[in-house]
């Protein structure tokens, strides 16, 4: 059950990261001069999405009892 749950978490994390990357890439392609301004919020958002997955892996999986 645990690998399945981790896979689900990875799917969600992937979708979230993909959405952020998609939006940031779109913005950067439309307005190349805004790259410097876009990168910082993008990195922050990436960090927040990633944290959910890490929480799942280290806290959720660590406290998992089969």
């Amino acid at each position, binding site marked *: 059950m645990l690998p399945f749950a981790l896979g689900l978490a990875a799917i969600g994390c992937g979708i979230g990261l993909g959405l952020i990357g998609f939006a940031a890439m779109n913005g950067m392609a439309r307005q190349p001069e805004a790259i410097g301004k876009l990168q*910082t919020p993008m990195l*922050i958002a990436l*960090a927040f999405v*990633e944290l959910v997955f890490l929480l799942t*892996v280290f806290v959720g999986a660590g406290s998992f009892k089969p």
Partner: protein
Amino acid sequence: MQDLVLNAQWFLAEATTHAAEAGGEHGGGHGGHATLSFMGLMIYTFAIAGLIMILMAFAKKGLKDRVFKGRLLQYFEQLHGFVENLCVGIIGGHGRKYMPMIYTLWLMIFVSNLVALAFPSSPTADLSFNLGIALLAIGYVQWEGMKANGVFGHWKHFAGPKLPIALIPITLMIFVIELISEVMKNVSLSLRLFGNIDGGHQAATAMNELGKESNLFLVKYLPFGAFLMPIKMLTCVVQALIFCLLFCVYLSLVTHHDHDDHADHAHGEEGGANAHPATT
């Protein structure tokens, strides 16, 4: 010479992990993943701090010249400029006075992350060290917040917007929630760093198990985990960057004020423009 290397490896493995204290029960199962003991963490931390201090001492050489000529000094200057850009971009013009703290944290985390590439463990791959620096960072944010708006003003900042006196339960609830989120900042900062660096170690360990069943010598002893090295190097830079970035954001949240706004705008476009998306 070989003996020396072997002894050093044994020392690193024995002295720095819990395996020495657990009496060898650690073995199979997790595939070599071991948490650092207290002594091991101290060894790693002081080794890295010493490394940074030695490099800085060498870099100090040409500091009095009009033009920086030393190669090492130029590296450190570039790094300082990079971190300062980050800091001033997020916090604004008054962000320069927080540079010593931010740069120290950056150097410590970045060098620890680089050490994590080559060594079996590293301070940032250990949750206690990460929690320590996260507590330090958030404590520093509280201190700076109290210095910027006074003790009462800083605590009032947790209570949210000014509401009519009849809505005091809501203010109390906001206060409690803000306090919890302030505590959770520690957890998120430390767990993110720990998860990324330790997760990299575990992924490399798991990938090294890949060819174990093969009969081919090359496949059996090929370190598959080494193929993760490029992405681990990327993680090194990005995690140090994100830690400092979030630290700057938290600092800018508590030290951002109306009377500072004019100063920010006077300092130029990039300070004011960058500050906004980050602070929301």
